[in-house]
Protein backbone atom coordinates (compact mmCIF):
# COMPACT_ATOMS: atom_id res chain seq x y z
CA UNK A 1 0.00 0.00 0.00
CA UNK A 2 2.94 2.36 0.38
CA UNK A 3 4.53 1.83 -2.97
CA UNK A 4 3.52 3.25 -6.29
CA UNK A 5 -0.17 2.44 -6.53
CA UNK A 6 -2.31 1.86 -9.55
CA UNK A 7 -4.29 4.83 -10.79
CA UNK A 8 -7.69 5.25 -9.17
CA UNK A 9 -10.64 3.80 -11.04
CA UNK A 10 -12.40 6.59 -12.93
CA UNK A 11 -15.14 8.45 -11.10
CA UNK A 12 -18.18 7.40 -13.03
CA UNK A 13 -20.21 10.21 -11.54
CA UNK A 14 -23.40 8.20 -12.03
CA UNK A 15 -26.50 8.98 -10.05
CA UNK A 16 -26.09 5.80 -7.99
CA UNK A 17 -23.04 7.10 -6.14
CA UNK A 18 -24.00 9.12 -3.09
CA UNK A 19 -21.66 11.79 -1.78
CA UNK A 20 -22.74 14.65 0.46
CA UNK A 21 -20.46 17.43 1.58
CA UNK A 22 -21.97 19.08 4.61
CA UNK A 23 -21.01 22.04 6.80
CA UNK A 24 -22.65 22.47 10.19
CA UNK A 25 -22.00 25.78 11.91
CA UNK A 26 -23.24 27.67 14.95
CA UNK A 27 -22.26 28.91 18.40
CA UNK A 28 -19.90 26.84 20.52
CA UNK A 29 -22.07 24.86 22.93
CA UNK A 30 -24.97 24.32 20.53
CA UNK A 31 -23.80 20.80 19.85
CA UNK A 32 -22.50 21.47 16.37
CA UNK A 33 -19.49 19.18 16.68
CA UNK A 34 -21.52 16.43 18.39
CA UNK A 35 -24.17 16.60 15.71
CA UNK A 36 -21.47 16.17 13.10
CA UNK A 37 -20.02 13.30 15.08
CA UNK A 38 -23.36 11.47 15.30
CA UNK A 39 -23.85 11.98 11.57
CA UNK A 40 -20.35 10.62 10.85
CA UNK A 41 -20.82 7.62 13.16
CA UNK A 42 -24.18 6.89 11.52
CA UNK A 43 -22.43 6.88 8.16
CA UNK A 44 -19.88 4.45 9.58
CA UNK A 45 -22.73 2.18 10.79
CA UNK A 46 -24.04 2.06 7.23
CA UNK A 47 -20.64 1.20 5.74
CA UNK A 48 -20.12 4.55 4.10
CA UNK A 49 -16.90 6.50 3.85
CA UNK A 50 -16.88 9.43 6.27
CA UNK A 51 -14.69 12.32 7.34
CA UNK A 52 -15.31 14.73 10.22
CA UNK A 53 -13.14 17.81 10.23
CA UNK A 54 -13.73 20.34 13.02
CA UNK A 55 -12.63 23.94 13.16
CA UNK A 56 -10.68 23.33 16.36
CA UNK A 57 -9.44 25.84 18.84
CA UNK A 58 -10.94 28.65 20.90
CA UNK A 59 -14.17 28.34 18.91
CA UNK A 60 -15.13 25.61 21.33
CA UNK A 61 -15.32 28.13 24.14
CA UNK A 62 -18.11 30.45 23.09
CA UNK A 63 -17.28 31.68 19.59
CA UNK A 64 -18.58 30.13 16.42
CA UNK A 65 -17.90 26.46 15.87
CA UNK A 66 -18.16 24.51 12.66
CA UNK A 67 -17.51 21.06 11.36
CA UNK A 68 -17.29 19.63 7.85
CA UNK A 69 -18.80 16.17 7.50
CA UNK A 70 -18.53 14.20 4.27
CA UNK A 71 -20.55 11.02 3.84
CA UNK A 72 -19.89 9.11 0.66
CA UNK A 73 -20.19 5.75 -1.05
CA UNK A 74 -16.64 6.07 -2.34
CA UNK A 75 -13.21 7.20 -1.18
CA UNK A 76 -13.14 10.78 0.12
CA UNK A 77 -10.37 13.06 -1.07
CA UNK A 78 -10.18 16.42 0.66
CA UNK A 79 -11.63 16.80 4.15
CA UNK A 80 -11.47 20.56 3.56
CA UNK A 81 -13.80 22.12 1.03
CA UNK A 82 -14.60 25.40 -0.64
CA UNK A 83 -18.19 24.53 -1.63
CA UNK A 84 -20.82 22.44 0.11
CA UNK A 85 -23.89 20.44 -0.89
CA UNK A 86 -25.60 21.23 2.39
CA UNK A 87 -25.07 23.98 4.97
CA UNK A 88 -26.73 23.82 8.38
CA UNK A 89 -26.40 27.23 10.00
CA UNK A 90 -27.48 27.91 13.53
CA UNK A 91 -26.50 31.56 13.97
CA UNK A 92 -26.24 34.74 11.92
CA UNK A 93 -22.44 34.78 11.39
CA UNK A 94 -22.59 31.19 10.13
CA UNK A 95 -25.30 32.07 7.62
CA UNK A 96 -23.27 34.99 6.32
CA UNK A 97 -20.15 32.87 6.05
CA UNK A 98 -21.62 29.77 4.42
CA UNK A 99 -24.63 30.85 2.33
CA UNK A 100 -22.32 31.96 -0.50
CA UNK A 101 -20.43 28.66 -0.33
CA UNK A 102 -23.35 26.35 -1.11
CA UNK A 103 -23.21 24.72 -4.55
CA UNK A 104 -26.01 25.79 -6.92
CA UNK A 105 -28.88 23.39 -6.37
CA UNK A 106 -27.67 22.71 -2.82
CA UNK A 107 -29.49 22.92 0.48
CA UNK A 108 -29.45 25.52 3.25
CA UNK A 109 -31.04 24.75 6.61
CA UNK A 110 -31.29 27.39 9.31
CA UNK A 111 -32.76 27.59 12.77
CA UNK A 112 -35.38 30.33 12.86
CA UNK A 113 -34.35 31.46 16.33
CA UNK A 114 -30.78 32.38 15.51
CA UNK A 115 -31.31 34.12 12.19
CA UNK A 116 -32.57 37.70 11.84
CA UNK A 117 -31.44 38.47 8.29
CA UNK A 118 -32.82 35.60 6.24
CA UNK A 119 -30.95 33.91 3.39
CA UNK A 120 -31.50 35.41 -0.04
CA UNK A 121 -30.16 32.97 -2.64
CA UNK A 122 -32.61 31.75 -5.26
CA UNK A 123 -30.53 28.92 -6.75
CA UNK A 124 -30.60 26.71 -3.67
CA UNK A 125 -33.36 25.07 -1.62
CA UNK A 126 -33.81 26.76 1.74
CA UNK A 127 -35.38 25.15 4.80
CA UNK A 128 -36.26 26.62 8.17
CA UNK A 129 -36.36 24.52 11.30
CA UNK A 130 -37.50 26.03 14.59
CA UNK A 131 -35.45 23.61 16.62
CA UNK A 132 -34.77 26.02 19.46
CA UNK A 133 -38.52 26.44 20.03
CA UNK A 134 -39.11 22.71 19.74
CA UNK A 135 -36.35 21.94 22.24
CA UNK A 136 -37.95 24.42 24.67
CA UNK A 137 -41.30 22.74 24.11
CA UNK A 138 -39.69 19.37 24.84
CA UNK A 139 -38.22 20.99 27.97
CA UNK A 140 -34.75 19.79 27.08
CA UNK A 141 -32.27 22.20 25.50
CA UNK A 142 -29.81 19.37 25.01
CA UNK A 143 -31.84 17.72 22.26
CA UNK A 144 -31.61 20.86 20.10
CA UNK A 145 -28.94 19.40 17.83
CA UNK A 146 -30.82 16.11 17.44
CA UNK A 147 -33.91 18.03 16.29
CA UNK A 148 -31.77 19.81 13.70
CA UNK A 149 -30.25 16.50 12.63
CA UNK A 150 -33.75 15.05 12.23
CA UNK A 151 -34.63 17.93 9.94
CA UNK A 152 -31.45 17.50 7.94
CA UNK A 153 -32.03 13.78 7.44
CA UNK A 154 -35.64 14.43 6.38
CA UNK A 155 -34.59 16.67 3.49
CA UNK A 156 -31.32 14.87 2.74
CA UNK A 157 -31.50 11.22 3.82
CA UNK A 158 -27.76 10.70 3.94
CA UNK A 159 -28.18 8.04 6.62
CA UNK A 160 -31.26 6.28 7.99
CA UNK A 161 -32.82 6.82 11.43
CA UNK A 162 -31.83 3.22 12.19
CA UNK A 163 -28.21 4.12 11.44
CA UNK A 164 -28.42 7.06 13.85
CA UNK A 165 -29.88 4.84 16.57
CA UNK A 166 -27.13 2.28 16.05
CA UNK A 167 -24.53 5.03 16.20
CA UNK A 168 -25.93 6.33 19.49
CA UNK A 169 -25.84 2.86 21.05
CA UNK A 170 -22.32 2.37 19.78
CA UNK A 171 -20.87 5.69 20.89
CA UNK A 172 -22.69 6.61 24.10
CA UNK A 173 -21.47 5.03 27.31
CA UNK A 174 -23.98 2.50 28.59
CA UNK A 175 -25.05 4.66 31.49
CA UNK A 176 -26.49 7.14 28.96
CA UNK A 177 -28.35 4.55 26.88
CA UNK A 178 -31.54 5.47 28.73
CA UNK A 179 -31.46 8.82 26.92
CA UNK A 180 -31.46 7.31 23.44
CA UNK A 181 -35.26 7.09 23.07
CA UNK A 182 -35.52 10.81 23.91
CA UNK A 183 -32.87 11.58 21.27
CA UNK A 184 -34.67 9.46 18.69
CA UNK A 185 -37.90 11.27 19.52
CA UNK A 186 -36.12 14.59 18.98
CA UNK A 187 -34.89 13.29 15.62
CA UNK A 188 -38.48 12.46 14.62
CA UNK A 189 -39.76 15.85 15.80
CA UNK A 190 -37.11 17.55 13.67
CA UNK A 191 -38.28 15.66 10.62
CA UNK A 192 -41.83 16.87 11.29
CA UNK A 193 -41.13 20.56 11.77
CA UNK A 194 -38.65 21.33 9.00
CA UNK A 195 -40.32 23.45 6.31
CA UNK A 196 -39.22 24.69 2.93
CA UNK A 197 -38.97 28.48 2.62
CA UNK A 198 -40.18 29.73 -0.73
Amino acid sequence: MYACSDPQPPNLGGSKIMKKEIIISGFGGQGVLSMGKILAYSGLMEDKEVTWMPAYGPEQRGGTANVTVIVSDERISSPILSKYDIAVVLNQPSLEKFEPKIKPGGILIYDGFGIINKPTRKDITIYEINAMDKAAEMKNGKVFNMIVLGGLLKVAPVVSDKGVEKALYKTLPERHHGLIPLNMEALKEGAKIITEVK
Partner: protein
Amino acid sequence: MAQEKEVVLMKGNEAIAHAAIRCGCDGYFGYPITPQSEVIETLAELKPWETTGMQVVQAESELASIYMVYGAAGAGKRAMTSSSSPGIALMQEGITYMAGAEVPGVFINVQRGGPGLGTIQPSQGDYNQATRGGGNGDYKVIVLAPSSVQEMADFVDLAFELAFKYRNPAMILSDGVIGQMMEKVVLPPFKPRRTDEEVIKECPWASTGKPKNRERVVITSLELKPEAMEKRNLALQEKYRKIQENEVRFEQQQMDDAEYAIVAFGSAARIAEKSVEIAREQGIKVGLFRPITLFPFPEKQIAELSKKVKGILVAEINAGQMVQDVRLAVNGAVPVDQFGRLGGIVPDPEEIVEALKKLI
Protein backbone atom coordinates in the same frame (compact mmCIF):
# COMPACT_ATOMS: atom_id res chain seq x y z
CA MET B 1 -10.10 -2.01 23.67
CA ALA B 2 -11.41 -2.32 20.14
CA GLN B 3 -11.25 -5.73 18.52
CA GLU B 4 -8.82 -6.49 15.76
CA LYS B 5 -9.99 -5.74 12.22
CA GLU B 6 -12.89 -3.70 13.51
CA VAL B 7 -13.44 -0.47 11.59
CA VAL B 8 -13.56 2.46 13.99
CA LEU B 9 -13.98 6.19 13.61
CA MET B 10 -11.36 8.28 15.34
CA LYS B 11 -9.08 11.28 15.16
CA GLY B 12 -5.58 10.96 13.77
CA ASN B 13 -4.14 11.78 17.18
CA GLU B 14 -6.22 9.05 18.82
CA ALA B 15 -5.13 6.58 16.15
CA ILE B 16 -1.48 7.30 17.02
CA ALA B 17 -2.13 6.39 20.65
CA HIS B 18 -3.97 3.15 19.81
CA ALA B 19 -1.32 2.18 17.27
CA ALA B 20 1.51 2.81 19.74
CA ILE B 21 0.00 0.40 22.25
CA ARG B 22 -0.72 -2.19 19.58
CA CYS B 23 2.72 -2.13 18.00
CA GLY B 24 4.50 -3.06 21.19
CA CYS B 25 5.73 0.39 22.16
CA ASP B 26 7.48 0.34 25.55
CA GLY B 27 7.17 3.97 26.53
CA TYR B 28 5.60 7.28 25.59
CA PHE B 29 6.98 10.47 27.06
CA GLY B 30 5.26 13.70 26.14
CA TYR B 31 4.04 17.12 27.01
CA PRO B 32 0.65 18.41 25.84
CA ILE B 33 0.34 21.01 23.10
CA THR B 34 -2.48 21.83 20.66
CA PRO B 35 -3.22 20.33 18.16
CA GLN B 36 -1.77 16.97 19.30
CA SER B 37 -2.86 16.72 22.94
CA GLU B 38 -5.27 13.87 22.18
CA VAL B 39 -2.28 11.55 21.85
CA ILE B 40 -1.41 11.67 25.55
CA GLU B 41 -5.08 12.10 26.52
CA THR B 42 -5.98 8.87 24.72
CA LEU B 43 -3.01 7.04 26.24
CA ALA B 44 -4.06 8.21 29.69
CA GLU B 45 -7.57 6.94 29.01
CA LEU B 46 -6.43 3.57 27.65
CA LYS B 47 -3.99 2.97 30.57
CA PRO B 48 -1.65 0.66 28.63
CA TRP B 49 0.56 0.24 31.72
CA GLU B 50 -2.20 -2.00 33.06
CA THR B 51 -2.35 -4.16 29.93
CA THR B 52 0.76 -4.30 27.75
CA GLY B 53 3.01 -2.71 30.36
CA MET B 54 3.75 0.29 28.14
CA GLN B 55 4.74 3.26 30.29
CA VAL B 56 3.20 6.69 29.73
CA VAL B 57 4.78 9.72 31.36
CA GLN B 58 3.72 13.32 31.11
CA ALA B 59 7.12 14.93 31.34
CA GLU B 60 7.78 18.40 32.74
CA SER B 61 8.79 19.77 29.35
CA GLU B 62 9.49 18.84 25.76
CA LEU B 63 13.20 18.73 26.49
CA ALA B 64 12.61 16.25 29.29
CA SER B 65 10.35 14.18 26.99
CA ILE B 66 12.95 13.75 24.26
CA TYR B 67 15.68 12.82 26.75
CA MET B 68 13.38 10.25 28.33
CA VAL B 69 12.97 8.82 24.82
CA TYR B 70 16.76 8.92 24.36
CA GLY B 71 17.27 7.12 27.66
CA ALA B 72 14.68 4.43 27.07
CA ALA B 73 15.79 3.91 23.48
CA GLY B 74 19.41 3.70 24.64
CA ALA B 75 18.31 0.62 26.54
CA GLY B 76 16.89 -0.81 23.30
CA LYS B 77 13.28 0.02 24.12
CA ARG B 78 10.67 1.17 21.64
CA ALA B 79 10.18 4.72 22.92
CA MET B 80 8.31 7.63 21.41
CA THR B 81 7.09 11.16 21.94
CA SER B 82 4.78 13.53 20.12
CA SER B 83 4.36 17.26 20.03
CA SER B 84 3.50 20.13 17.73
CA SER B 85 5.83 22.52 15.96
CA PRO B 86 7.13 24.76 18.81
CA GLY B 87 7.52 21.70 21.02
CA ILE B 88 9.37 19.78 18.31
CA ALA B 89 11.70 22.78 17.93
CA LEU B 90 12.55 22.42 21.62
CA MET B 91 13.33 18.72 21.11
CA GLN B 92 15.89 19.26 18.36
CA GLU B 93 18.84 19.08 20.73
CA GLY B 94 17.84 15.62 21.91
CA ILE B 95 17.12 14.46 18.38
CA THR B 96 20.56 15.42 17.05
CA TYR B 97 22.13 13.67 20.07
CA MET B 98 20.11 10.56 19.22
CA ALA B 99 21.12 10.77 15.56
CA GLY B 100 24.76 11.23 16.58
CA ALA B 101 24.67 8.32 19.02
CA GLU B 102 22.66 6.23 16.53
CA VAL B 103 19.79 5.62 18.88
CA PRO B 104 16.42 4.70 17.35
CA GLY B 105 13.27 6.48 18.50
CA VAL B 106 10.02 7.76 17.10
CA PHE B 107 8.69 11.26 17.37
CA ILE B 108 5.55 12.72 15.89
CA ASN B 109 5.08 16.31 14.82
CA VAL B 110 1.42 17.34 14.45
CA GLN B 111 2.37 20.63 12.84
CA ARG B 112 0.82 24.01 13.50
CA GLY B 113 1.58 27.41 12.01
CA GLY B 114 4.72 29.31 12.97
CA PRO B 115 7.18 30.89 13.35
CA GLY B 116 7.52 31.08 17.12
CA LEU B 117 4.42 30.12 19.06
CA GLY B 118 2.55 31.01 15.86
CA THR B 119 -0.95 29.64 15.75
CA ILE B 120 -2.67 26.42 16.72
CA GLN B 121 -4.09 25.93 13.22
CA PRO B 122 -2.56 23.45 10.73
CA SER B 123 0.60 24.07 8.72
CA GLN B 124 3.38 22.23 6.92
CA GLY B 125 5.95 24.85 7.85
CA ASP B 126 8.34 22.37 9.45
CA TYR B 127 9.20 20.51 6.22
CA ASN B 128 12.70 21.98 6.04
CA GLN B 129 13.35 21.37 9.73
CA ALA B 130 12.22 17.75 9.41
CA THR B 131 14.09 16.90 6.22
CA ARG B 132 17.33 18.71 7.01
CA GLY B 133 17.81 17.07 10.37
CA GLY B 134 16.58 20.02 12.40
CA GLY B 135 19.37 20.29 14.95
CA ASN B 136 23.11 20.83 14.61
CA GLY B 137 25.44 18.71 12.53
CA ASP B 138 25.24 16.60 9.38
CA TYR B 139 22.42 14.20 10.02
CA LYS B 140 19.05 13.04 8.78
CA VAL B 141 15.97 11.62 10.39
CA ILE B 142 13.64 9.30 8.51
CA VAL B 143 10.46 11.26 7.80
CA LEU B 144 7.06 9.70 7.05
CA ALA B 145 4.16 11.94 6.01
CA PRO B 146 0.70 10.41 6.62
CA SER B 147 -2.24 11.79 4.66
CA SER B 148 -5.03 9.90 6.41
CA VAL B 149 -6.03 8.68 9.84
CA GLN B 150 -5.31 5.13 8.61
CA GLU B 151 -1.74 6.11 7.84
CA MET B 152 -1.40 7.78 11.23
CA ALA B 153 -2.15 4.35 12.69
CA ASP B 154 -0.02 2.37 10.21
CA PHE B 155 3.05 4.58 10.31
CA VAL B 156 3.74 4.22 14.04
CA ASP B 157 4.87 0.62 13.65
CA LEU B 158 6.58 1.40 10.35
CA ALA B 159 8.49 4.27 11.97
CA PHE B 160 9.67 1.96 14.76
CA GLU B 161 10.69 -0.72 12.27
CA LEU B 162 12.72 1.75 10.22
CA ALA B 163 14.19 3.44 13.30
CA PHE B 164 15.49 0.11 14.64
CA LYS B 165 16.54 -1.21 11.25
CA TYR B 166 18.81 1.81 10.73
CA ARG B 167 19.44 2.81 14.38
CA ASN B 168 18.18 6.27 13.59
CA PRO B 169 15.42 8.58 14.84
CA ALA B 170 12.27 8.44 12.71
CA MET B 171 9.65 11.13 12.53
CA ILE B 172 6.01 11.12 11.55
CA LEU B 173 5.37 14.55 10.07
CA SER B 174 1.66 15.16 10.37
CA ASP B 175 -0.35 18.32 10.93
CA GLY B 176 -3.46 19.74 12.59
CA VAL B 177 -5.72 18.54 9.78
CA ILE B 178 -4.77 14.87 10.01
CA GLY B 179 -4.42 15.03 13.80
CA GLN B 180 -7.85 16.54 14.40
CA MET B 181 -9.98 14.96 11.70
CA MET B 182 -11.94 11.76 12.26
CA GLU B 183 -11.96 9.03 9.65
CA LYS B 184 -12.51 5.33 9.43
CA VAL B 185 -9.52 3.33 10.52
CA VAL B 186 -8.67 -0.33 10.91
CA LEU B 187 -6.31 -0.51 13.87
CA PRO B 188 -3.23 -2.69 13.49
CA PRO B 189 -3.23 -6.09 15.23
CA PHE B 190 -1.64 -6.41 18.66
CA LYS B 191 2.05 -7.20 18.68
CA PRO B 192 3.59 -8.04 22.04
CA ARG B 193 6.29 -5.82 23.52
CA ARG B 194 9.72 -7.37 23.13
CA THR B 195 11.04 -9.26 26.11
CA ASP B 196 14.35 -8.29 27.72
CA GLU B 197 15.97 -11.31 26.06
CA GLU B 198 14.69 -10.24 22.65
CA VAL B 199 15.97 -6.70 23.19
CA ILE B 200 19.43 -8.00 24.13
CA LYS B 201 19.49 -10.20 21.04
CA GLU B 202 18.19 -7.59 18.60
CA CYS B 203 20.02 -4.57 20.01
CA PRO B 204 23.60 -5.56 20.85
CA TRP B 205 24.45 -1.85 20.85
CA ALA B 206 21.97 -1.07 23.65
CA SER B 207 22.95 -0.59 27.26
CA THR B 208 21.14 -3.56 28.73
CA GLY B 209 23.53 -4.36 31.56
CA LYS B 210 27.11 -5.57 31.12
CA PRO B 211 27.77 -9.30 31.32
CA LYS B 212 31.37 -10.45 32.00
CA ASN B 213 31.87 -11.81 28.49
CA ARG B 214 31.48 -8.60 26.53
CA GLU B 215 32.82 -5.05 26.43
CA ARG B 216 30.65 -2.32 27.85
CA VAL B 217 28.56 -0.41 25.30
CA VAL B 218 28.97 3.33 25.13
CA ILE B 219 26.14 5.46 23.83
CA THR B 220 27.28 8.97 23.10
CA SER B 221 27.39 11.52 20.32
CA LEU B 222 30.65 13.01 21.66
CA GLU B 223 34.00 12.16 20.03
CA LEU B 224 36.85 14.59 20.57
CA LYS B 225 39.27 13.11 18.04
CA PRO B 226 38.44 14.73 14.67
CA GLU B 227 39.74 11.72 12.72
CA ALA B 228 37.45 9.39 14.60
CA MET B 229 34.59 11.87 14.34
CA GLU B 230 35.04 12.20 10.59
CA LYS B 231 34.93 8.41 10.28
CA ARG B 232 31.76 8.32 12.31
CA ASN B 233 30.24 11.04 10.10
CA LEU B 234 31.16 9.13 6.96
CA ALA B 235 29.50 6.05 8.36
CA LEU B 236 26.37 8.09 9.03
CA GLN B 237 26.39 9.45 5.48
CA GLU B 238 26.76 5.91 4.16
CA LYS B 239 23.74 4.90 6.23
CA TYR B 240 21.69 7.81 4.85
CA ARG B 241 22.65 6.74 1.32
CA LYS B 242 21.37 3.26 2.10
CA ILE B 243 18.12 4.68 3.43
CA GLN B 244 17.79 6.82 0.30
CA GLU B 245 18.33 3.75 -1.83
CA ASN B 246 15.98 1.39 -0.02
CA GLU B 247 13.22 3.22 1.74
CA VAL B 248 11.62 5.67 -0.70
CA ARG B 249 7.83 5.47 -0.55
CA PHE B 250 5.36 7.40 -2.66
CA GLU B 251 1.93 7.18 -4.27
CA GLN B 252 0.61 8.33 -7.64
CA GLN B 253 -2.95 9.02 -8.70
CA GLN B 254 -4.27 9.58 -12.19
CA MET B 255 -0.77 10.03 -13.59
CA ASP B 256 -1.15 7.68 -16.59
CA ASP B 257 -2.42 10.27 -19.06
CA ALA B 258 -1.42 13.34 -17.05
CA GLU B 259 0.06 16.38 -18.79
CA TYR B 260 0.60 18.16 -15.50
CA ALA B 261 1.36 16.95 -12.00
CA ILE B 262 0.60 18.27 -8.56
CA VAL B 263 3.19 17.19 -6.00
CA ALA B 264 1.91 17.35 -2.43
CA PHE B 265 2.41 15.51 0.87
CA GLY B 266 0.30 14.90 3.97
CA SER B 267 -2.92 16.86 4.33
CA ALA B 268 -2.08 19.02 1.30
CA ALA B 269 -2.09 15.82 -0.79
CA ARG B 270 -5.64 15.06 0.35
CA ILE B 271 -6.74 18.54 -0.63
CA ALA B 272 -4.87 18.29 -3.93
CA GLU B 273 -6.61 14.98 -4.66
CA LYS B 274 -9.86 16.95 -4.79
CA SER B 275 -8.15 19.63 -6.91
CA VAL B 276 -7.28 16.88 -9.40
CA GLU B 277 -10.96 15.80 -9.49
CA ILE B 278 -12.09 19.41 -10.10
CA ALA B 279 -9.42 20.11 -12.71
CA ARG B 280 -10.21 16.91 -14.61
CA GLU B 281 -13.90 17.85 -14.70
CA GLN B 282 -12.71 21.02 -16.44
CA GLY B 283 -10.71 18.98 -18.94
CA ILE B 284 -7.25 19.53 -17.47
CA LYS B 285 -5.23 16.32 -17.55
CA VAL B 286 -3.53 16.44 -14.18
CA GLY B 287 -2.38 13.79 -11.72
CA LEU B 288 -1.12 13.69 -8.18
CA PHE B 289 2.30 12.58 -6.96
CA ARG B 290 2.49 12.16 -3.20
CA PRO B 291 5.83 11.62 -1.48
CA ILE B 292 5.16 9.42 1.57
CA THR B 293 8.76 9.49 2.77
CA LEU B 294 10.14 13.06 2.85
CA PHE B 295 13.55 11.76 3.80
CA PRO B 296 14.35 9.72 1.78
CA PHE B 297 12.76 12.03 -0.79
CA PRO B 298 11.55 10.33 -4.02
CA GLU B 299 13.99 12.36 -6.12
CA LYS B 300 14.51 9.76 -8.87
CA GLN B 301 10.78 9.25 -9.27
CA ILE B 302 10.16 12.98 -9.55
CA ALA B 303 12.97 13.30 -12.10
CA GLU B 304 11.20 10.55 -14.09
CA LEU B 305 7.90 12.34 -13.69
CA SER B 306 9.36 15.54 -15.14
CA LYS B 307 10.02 13.69 -18.39
CA LYS B 308 6.34 12.89 -18.78
CA VAL B 309 4.62 16.19 -17.91
CA LYS B 310 4.66 19.78 -19.14
CA GLY B 311 4.75 21.34 -15.70
CA ILE B 312 4.57 20.64 -11.98
CA LEU B 313 2.72 22.46 -9.22
CA VAL B 314 3.88 21.88 -5.67
CA ALA B 315 1.02 22.44 -3.22
CA GLU B 316 2.13 22.69 0.40
CA ILE B 317 0.91 24.58 3.45
CA ASN B 318 3.98 26.79 3.76
CA ALA B 319 5.85 29.51 1.87
CA GLY B 320 7.73 27.08 -0.39
CA GLN B 321 9.83 24.35 1.20
CA MET B 322 9.33 20.99 -0.54
CA VAL B 323 9.32 22.89 -3.84
CA GLN B 324 13.10 23.25 -3.41
CA ASP B 325 13.53 19.48 -3.34
CA VAL B 326 11.21 19.09 -6.33
CA ARG B 327 13.17 21.70 -8.30
CA LEU B 328 16.43 19.92 -7.46
CA ALA B 329 14.98 16.66 -8.73
CA VAL B 330 13.45 18.22 -11.85
CA ASN B 331 16.67 20.13 -12.55
CA GLY B 332 15.09 22.65 -14.89
CA ALA B 333 13.42 20.08 -17.14
CA VAL B 334 9.94 21.61 -16.77
CA PRO B 335 8.52 24.67 -14.98
CA VAL B 336 7.83 24.08 -11.28
CA ASP B 337 5.42 26.43 -9.48
CA GLN B 338 4.45 26.47 -5.83
CA PHE B 339 1.21 27.28 -4.09
CA GLY B 340 0.76 27.54 -0.34
CA ARG B 341 -1.13 29.34 2.38
CA LEU B 342 0.45 30.49 5.61
CA GLY B 343 -0.20 31.19 9.26
CA GLY B 344 -2.68 28.37 9.85
CA ILE B 345 -4.82 28.98 6.76
CA VAL B 346 -5.39 25.71 4.93
CA PRO B 347 -5.78 26.08 1.17
CA ASP B 348 -9.02 24.84 -0.33
CA PRO B 349 -9.08 22.60 -3.40
CA GLU B 350 -10.19 25.35 -5.79
CA GLU B 351 -7.34 27.67 -4.86
CA ILE B 352 -4.94 24.92 -5.92
CA VAL B 353 -6.82 24.52 -9.23
CA GLU B 354 -6.47 28.28 -9.82
CA ALA B 355 -2.72 28.06 -9.15
CA LEU B 356 -2.52 25.12 -11.56
CA LYS B 357 -4.22 27.19 -14.28
CA LYS B 358 -1.59 29.89 -13.87
CA LEU B 359 1.10 27.27 -14.49
CA ILE B 360 -0.69 26.11 -17.65
